[in-house]
């Protein structure tokens, strides 16, 4: 039955959405970490400059 193709597509899309979203959250988490690193460095620089 050709229906199986549709079925497969549907489940792929659904699971893809969830994992894609998790991946997206992980990326955002990484960018937060990068910002945090930048701030920490800046803070250290300020402290040594003063």
């Amino acid at each position: 039955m050709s229906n199986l193709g549709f079925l497969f597509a549907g489940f792929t899309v659904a699971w893809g959405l969830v994992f894609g979203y998790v991946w997206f959250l992980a990326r955002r988490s990484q960018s937060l970490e990068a910002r945090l690193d930048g701030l920490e460095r800046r803070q250290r620089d300020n402290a040594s400059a003063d």
Partner: protein
Amino acid sequence: MSTRPSRSDGLGSLAIVAFVLSAVSLGLTFLYAPTERVEGDIQRMLYLHVPAAFTMYVGYAVVFFASFMYLLRRESRWDELAASAAEVGTVFTSMMITTGPIWAKPVWGTYWTWDARLTSAFVLWLILIGYLMLRAYGGHAEQVARYCAVLAIIGFADLPIIHYSVQWWRTLHPDAKIMTEGSPGQGLESSMMITFAVAFAAALLTFTVLLKLRLRLERQNRRLDALQRELTRPSPVVLGSTN
């Protein structure tokens, strides 16, 4: 202000349970549940589609409740919850709105028709997109929180009105009632019921895990924003120092 969320908030183990349950649900869908007589194998899509739709409504309810509480209390944690639930809710709405047409093509012979349920699902999806756009472009954080809360409350009140208007619009037309969606509940075999039950549990648990993950990210983001503002505040420029 906000306390640091402890590392052991159980999110990791909850995520594992959600994943295992989803895998079990997948197995039940393909190996355990019987093939439906009229629609054939494609009916198995409903084990995904219906729980996704239900979870979408749960998401809507959380956004509404959190928005209402935010307007009442004006505490940013309620806004964090609303923002997170709206985004995760959009994932499930997208899931519903994509699996729907894929199921419909072989059964109805067309991907899309302006049937009552499809239309209202489409409108709900658009409202969520508007909500996320407002979040992104609404101005400073506190203003966004108020605006989004108002939008969520008005949007939630609109849900039943949209539902009934679209229903009337379609069913009162002469060319209506072309098809009714494969409605679970009518003569459902017990194996189908069990599969549905597991699928619902898996979807709701996945929603919870994603929500918690997103919420944690939102909190961290806000703390970082505040920290950045503190540290990068322009050094005081003094004018009129000729005095």
